[in-house]
């Protein structure tokens, strides 16, 4: 008793854009054939990315919870530990990440407006920022602190610690910033791939899913740092 529906006139398969080889790469970009249109594909990718960002936030949630609990237990250790961090490097890194977030947002605008040259410049600036961030982190923060014995857990050997639980602070400091740094590296890797693709002309108006998604990830890395910075450097 299956009734017959003839109301519409749906095409059998989705309408892929014509693949003329003279057109720029982004115009020839097909979309997966279970989607009905490019817009749907784009929308879905964005929802998927937001869901992924959710998982990232909840990954960091664990560190924030540990931070909250131990801060509640050992406020003195945390106050002392925080004094050992150099606010200047932390603030500089914040500025660097904010600028890189800005350039990523700008690069999306470039893709939307088909400004291919600016697009590459903005993405490159972002990558430079990521590099700077990592350099500062390692050479001016990790290395000297490690050398002074401000290390996590049993490795802690700083002789002038004022509180018996200061190693917990350092454990959380290294865990939080370390996992964040890992995310910076991953984000930079993804953006690097995006940059390479942009040289091949993959992105253009309404066809910039890759940048959009990588950009969302990069902004998230920035947002996490926005919270880590005051928690680690500013609250004494």
């Amino acid at each position, binding site marked *: 008793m299956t009734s017959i*529906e003839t*109301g519409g006139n749906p095409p059998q398969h989705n309408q892929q854009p014509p693949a003329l080889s003279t057109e720029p790469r982004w115009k020839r970009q097909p979309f997966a054939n279970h989607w009905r249109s490019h817009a749907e594909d784009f929308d879905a990718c964005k929802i998927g990315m*937001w869901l992924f960002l959710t998982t990232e936030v909840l990954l960091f949630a664990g560190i924030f919870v540990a931070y909250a609990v131990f801060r509640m237990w050992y406020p003195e250790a945390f106050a002392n530990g925080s004094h050992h961090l150099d606010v200047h490097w932390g*603030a500089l890194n914040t500025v660097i990440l904010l600028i890189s977030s800005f350039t990523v947002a700008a690069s999306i605008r470039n893709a939307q407006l088909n400004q291919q040259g600016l697009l590459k410049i903005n993405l490159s600036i972002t990558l430079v920022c990521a590099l700077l961030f990592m350099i500062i982190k390692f050479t001016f923060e990790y290395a000297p602190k490690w050398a002074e014995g401000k290390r996590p857990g049993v490795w802690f050997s700083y002789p002038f610690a004022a509180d018996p639980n200061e190693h917990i602070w350092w454990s959380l400091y290294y865990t939080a910033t370390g996992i964040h740094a890992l995310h910076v590296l991953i984000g930079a890797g993804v953006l690097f791939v995006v940059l390479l693709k942009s040289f091949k002309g993959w992105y253009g108006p309404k066809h910039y899913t890759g940048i959009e998604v990588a950009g969302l990830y990069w902004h998230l890395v920035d947002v996490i740092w926005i919270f880590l910075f005051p928690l680690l450097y500013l609250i004494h």
Partner: protein
Amino acid sequence: MADQQHQGPAGSPTSEKEKLGFDPHDPHGFHEGEEHGHHILSMRMLVVILALLLALTGLTVGSAQAEIIIAEELGISIPQWVNVTIAMTIATVKAILVVAFFMQLYYDTKLNTMILLFCLLTFGLFIGFTSIDMGNRDRIYSWKDGQHTPGGTGGLGLERGAFDSDRNPRRTTVTGPDGEDTGRTRRASEEVAGAITDYSADPDVARTRIDADVLERLERYQERRRAQRPAASPNRVTDLSSPRLFAPPDDEDGDGNN
């Protein structure tokens, strides 16, 4: 579906769309969403957001520095929660700016905002319930101390000894390495926790197979801890074999009774 009449192309398109739940002229939505979802931010907007973010960063660093300066120069120590509130509020505002404009959530579908809100709700549950437990360990120790009267107030804060006259968890002053007053305090539970730490460091009791290097480090750490420990306070329990661990703090002879 014998009982349902075939729907002809009659009727206005919108009402039909509502009735069917899909657009009969585009039932598979091939052209849906073509025009949405591509908001282009103006350059001015982007720059303004960046400027705001940088200014807020300056503000939060400044206020933290100000606290230190005020404390050092004027000798006024601002309560910690002020500092925490300022820093976290500024961070939240910054995060909202990034999320709403750089990540374009403000212009995006509601679904993505919902996803973010659910994420934050989950985060809230995680941190909230965990803190309820981890922040209330005093209650357990008051049970174990025997200060809690079974059938009494259920550990809700009226027990003798665990709480001071203002019904705050009792705190003892922490003295520095040379016995000087540091002006800091710690909770009763932290002292007991310290005692337990000693206990498990006894190699006979806590038999572990961590490699020698780590053990050595642990020992050094314990030593350091002992060295930094404040001079004996009457309530501090160091010898675990004594029944005093679970005795009320004002138990002089350590027999478990006052």
